């Protein structure tokens, strides 16, 4: 029996290759994401190992999440550390993220991921080597690492603008530096080096140091120095060896990469789920087409068990081969992507390796999924009666009753799980399981749904004979049409769901903005960097106020603060009454006056969460570290644009960098928006990160981010769609093979090649349109459920993204046309003579 199976396999190489392709693609995605994240993870490990290679021990102030922000290290601290036996020297480093260099083209130099660091230059510290020029001596002199100088397009001697905690300042570039081994930088990190004083002022906002780079005396181990320093300094300091530091930072990156891996695996999982449908369908069709062969084997004495095994063995071989090829392809894809990522991040890539996880996942996924998918067809093969070998007629269409009942039950269970997962607010697994079940349920229901829908869709094409024939063909095997369409449904549903949620969010935001935001112009930082929020000089707010046509202007400073024991991001508003008008804030309790030195207001939601009411006194520590008592004078309505605690202008004294990150302008009646904007543009020429936009433009920027997110989701789901389209191609191909005789007959009675191709194309388009419609409906349903559950989180309106849905529908039809290309060529090439005598 095994030999017969193998022979039968080799006799159907094409079919085998196509069904294997689904496994290959899915395994490739899974293995590729393992390889990618593993390689990047090891690359970062190497990077931090080298970064701390010259550092024996690191001393930092201890930061407590529930405590006030840590104070910088002092010169006294340095002396204390250096007094410890075994310490040769402690380099005091004043370093922070957020030094943005303005390039020769006037634009801020940005990176994809790696931070932009500003620090003081210390000769001999951290393995840095001067490449050109000299170290900064004066406070208006800087050095750049070679990587940054190259990106900025500046050279030694140039005047270079740098944005820090303070607005743009000009510096003379006096030198460049790199690292041992000829490196222009480390891991794509862009570095600016100042004098001690400038670094403290611009990067820390206060005197002191962020950490000590401690060198052990010869013959003393880093661990011994660490323990000695720790003993001397006490609990207010963190002391770690360079190796521990490297590991701690690498672990942070690893957890980010783990997250990335999980996201990629989720999308790979979707692709494989779709692949399961494909394999199931291919094996079902194959078994159906081999009924005679199987029945003959039964008639010759093969047992049911042998029949099942013959199909399972076939699946095992396909799965195994698919897993091996997919693993190899995944290694290649992971390697390419790792190189791309490393190129963008300027990272030295660790040698590529095959992580055990990738191998295990590849084989588990490839073999198990293929075998599972083939199980149903295998059982069907065993049911073939020996007499079928002698009968011409294929097995009649079985009733769909059981399938439909099963589908309804599974769909209901899935929906219930989704509902449970959503109402709980954080039950991810029941929700994902529910979505999976809902997909299976809808797939089971699709044959019964398919009958009327396919008939209806087919009517669109019935005006021509090929169209009519195509329609009839797509309706003749509801199960086959349905499962092929269902595979497409999954990808489309997920994209539609995401699109619905995002569109609802966008619509809610726009609706809320139009209702609540009364300001005419918004001055905000471009959110291109995640390291620092762009700010501008506080004195510009007064200059804005003087512009003719500006009725009122408010500005906000933001900072991290400890309110009671809760860490919060808080805003300091210069003119609360005007701010309240601009954002339609109304008091729910108390008042919203111009805030005095010890007054604070808060929104209703935060007030409820933190159990704060008017009259309460709150102990607040902002980032300079002093604890100040504030009295709650007002609680305003819940707002989508003002969330959290609002302080008055005098609170700025407790903030390290008291620069506004946002200003809102209300125009005087009849004032020209254009003339005000022109003057604002002049005012902000030196702030390349600051943009002025009106409400509509501001909202469009936000929507832009949403559509970027949607594009990413669509790209990642693309693989699932490709596999589904592959399914359509294979199903059509097998159908064409199965109907060779019919096609030959049609050709014999005068159907031209073009018409034959149109017939197959219509069948294909009907299938893909059905799948797309099913996906759109399911996706909108899932989206509606999620939107409902997010009602409390600001998504108040459920909005169906009609334009996107129509685009998907058109895309669905196009996909049908594309999928039909190969099968229709195959059909058109049918040799009439052979076809009509084909058995």
């Amino acid at each position, binding site marked *: 029996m095994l030999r017969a199976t193998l022979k039968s396999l080799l006799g159907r190489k094409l079919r085998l290759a196509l069904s294997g392709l689904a496994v290959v693609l899915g395994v490739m995605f899974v293995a590729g994401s393992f390889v990618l994240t593993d390689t990047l993870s090891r690359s970062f490990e190497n990077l931090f190992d080298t970064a701390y290679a010259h550092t024996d021990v690191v001393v930092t102030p201890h930061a407590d999440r529930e405590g006030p922000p840590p104070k910088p290290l002092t010169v006294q601290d340095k002396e204390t550390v250096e007094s410890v036996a075994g310490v040769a020297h402690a380099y005091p480093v004043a370093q922070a993220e957020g030094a943005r260099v303005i390039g020769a083209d006037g634009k801020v130099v940005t990176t994809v991921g790696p931070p932009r660091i500003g620090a003081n230059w210390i000769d001999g510290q951290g393995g840095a080597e001067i490449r050109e020029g000299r170290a900064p001596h004066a406070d208006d002199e800087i050095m750049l690492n070679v990587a940054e100088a190259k990106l900025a397009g500046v050279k030694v001697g140039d005047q270079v603008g740098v944005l820090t905690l303070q607005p743009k300042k000009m510096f003379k570039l006096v030198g460049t530096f790199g690292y041992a081994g000829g490196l222009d930088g480390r891991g794509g990190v862009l570095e600016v080096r100042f004098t001690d004083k400038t670094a403290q002022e611009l990067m820390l906002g206060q005197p002191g140091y962020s950490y000590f780079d401690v060198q052990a005396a010869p013959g003393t181990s880093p661990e011994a120095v660490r323990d000695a320093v720790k003993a001397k300094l006490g609990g207010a300091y963190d002391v770690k060896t360079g190796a521990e530091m490297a590991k701690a930072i690498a672990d942070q990156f690893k957890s980010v990469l783990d997250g990335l891996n999980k996201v990629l695996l989720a999308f790979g999982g979707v692709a494989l789920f779709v692949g399961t449908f494909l394999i199931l369908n291919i094996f079902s069709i194959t078994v159906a087409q081999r009924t005679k062969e199987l029945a003959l084997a039964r008639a010759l004495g093969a047992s049911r068990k042998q029949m099942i095994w013959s199909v399972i063995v076939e699946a095992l071989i396909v799965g195994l081969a698919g897993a091996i090829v997919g693993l190899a392809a995944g290694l290649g894809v992971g390697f390419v992507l790792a190189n791309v990522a490393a190129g963008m991040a300027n990272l030295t890539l660790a040698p590529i390796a095959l992580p055990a996880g990738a191998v295990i996942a590849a084989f588990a996924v490839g073999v198990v999924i293929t075998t599972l998918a083939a199980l149903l067809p295998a059982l069907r093969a065993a049911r073939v009666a020996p007499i079928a070998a002698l009968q011409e*007629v294929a097995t009649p269409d079985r009733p769909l009753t059981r399938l439909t009942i099963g589908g309804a039950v599974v769909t209901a269970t899935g929906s219930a799980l989704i509902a449970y997962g959503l109402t709980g607010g954080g039950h991810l697994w029941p929700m994902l399981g529910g979505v999976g079940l809902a997909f299976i349920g809808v797939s089971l229901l699709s044959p019964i749904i398919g009958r009327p829908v396919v008939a209806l869709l087919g009517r669109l094409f019935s005006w021509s*004979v090929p169209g*009519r*024939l195509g329609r*009839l*063909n797509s*309706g*003749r095997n509801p199960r086959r049409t349905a499962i092929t369409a269902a595979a497409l449904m999954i990808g489309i549903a997920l994209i539609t769901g995401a699109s619905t949620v995002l569109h609802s969010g966008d619509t809610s935001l726009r609706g809320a903005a139009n209702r609540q935001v009364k300001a005419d112009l918004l001055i905000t930082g471009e959110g291109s960097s995640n390291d620092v929020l762009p700010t501008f000089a506080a004195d510009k707010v007064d200059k804005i106020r003087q512009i003719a046509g500006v009725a009122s202007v408010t500005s906000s400073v933001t900072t991290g603060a400890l309110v009671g024991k809760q860490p919060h991001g808080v805003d300091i508003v210069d003119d609360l009454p005007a701010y309240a008008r601009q954002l339609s804030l109304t008091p729910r309790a108390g008042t919203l006056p111009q805030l005095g030195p010890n007054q604070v207001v808060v929104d209703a939601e935060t007030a409820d969460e933190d159990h704060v009411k008017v009259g309460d006194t709150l102990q607040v520590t902002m980032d300079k570290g002093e604890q100040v008592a504030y009295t709650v004078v007002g609680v305003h309505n819940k707002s989508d644009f003002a969330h959290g605690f609002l302080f008055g202008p005098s609170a700025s004294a407790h903030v390290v960098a008291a620069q506004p990150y946002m200003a809102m302008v209300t125009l005087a009646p009849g004032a020209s928006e254009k003339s005000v904007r022109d003057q604002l543009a002049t005012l902000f020429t030196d702030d390349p990160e600051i943009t002025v936009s009106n409400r509509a433009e501001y909202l469009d920027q936000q929507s832009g981010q949403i559509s970027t997110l949607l594009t990413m989701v669509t790209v990642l789901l693309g693989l699932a769609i490709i596999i589904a389209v592959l399914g359509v191609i294979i199903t059509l191909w097998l159908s064409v093979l199965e109907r060779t*005789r*019919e096609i*030959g*007959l*049609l*050709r*014999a*009675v*005068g*159907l*031209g*090649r073009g*018409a034959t191709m149109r017939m197959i194309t219509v069948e294909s388009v009907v299938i893909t349109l059905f799948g797309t419609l099913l996906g759109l409906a399911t996706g909108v349903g899932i989206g509606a459920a999620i939107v409902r559950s997010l009602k409390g989180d600001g998504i108040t309106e459920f909005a169906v993204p009609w334009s996107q849905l129509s685009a998907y529908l058109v895309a669905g039809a196009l996909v049908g046309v594309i999928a039909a290309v190969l099968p229709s060529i195959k059909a058109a090439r049918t040799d*009439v*003579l052979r076809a*009509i*005598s084909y058995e």
Partner: protein
Amino acid sequence: MTVTVSPPVRTESAARAADLWKVYGSGEAQVVALRGVSTEIEAGRFTAIMGPSGSGKSTLMHCLAGLDTATRGEVFIGSTKLTGLNDKGLTKLRREQVGFIFQQFNLLPTLSAKENILLPLAIAGRKPDEGWFDTVISTVGLGDRLGHRPSQLSGGQQQRVACARALVARPGVIFADEPTGNLDSRSGAEVLSFLRRSVREFGQTIVMVTHDPTAASYADRVLFLADGQIVNELTDPTPQTVLDAMQKLDPGHGPAAAAQDQDEERN
């Protein structure tokens, strides 16, 4: 024994083959299926092509019908020369001048009997002639079965649908390939008398390939093939005269005949 085919007596030809050769393969594997066949199919007559297995009778019919291309020689259907026609030309020819009846009834399972019958007209974008359609239907006796799907019809009924399908378009010539091969003798007789009636009463031209002397006896004229050549011809045959003629044929055991057996298997 070679018989020179006499020139047409009274009618123009519906189809004509001139020095037709069909060779499969090359070199040592070469198989000659037809060796210089020249014949004319008279319009308005029922012609049967007979011959033992491997004689090339199916190949001859396929070449005449434009389903297969000859290696050498010319084929005409009506005044259209088939040799050198591209797929488009052949498709047009099939739409307008040729009808087929196959041994395996070859109906589309998705269409009803009526839709199957009207399929060639629908494909060609022609309107059926209601009167003619009714005539054909009543002739084949399918009146009450028109709405049925092929799977709901017996073999004989399916073949009558196939006959009606070929007739309804009124092609210049209908080619029937063993039309009774899959039918019991009673259904076969029905189909054959129906074919003969359509020739006698409606002037339809039919060419039928068969190996059954009884079936051949329904024809007006029988061509006998052996070894890829026309070796004999009978007009107004009876089962007995056909049988006698067949017995006179020596199937031969030469290499050519053996090779033609392979050819026959291919078809």
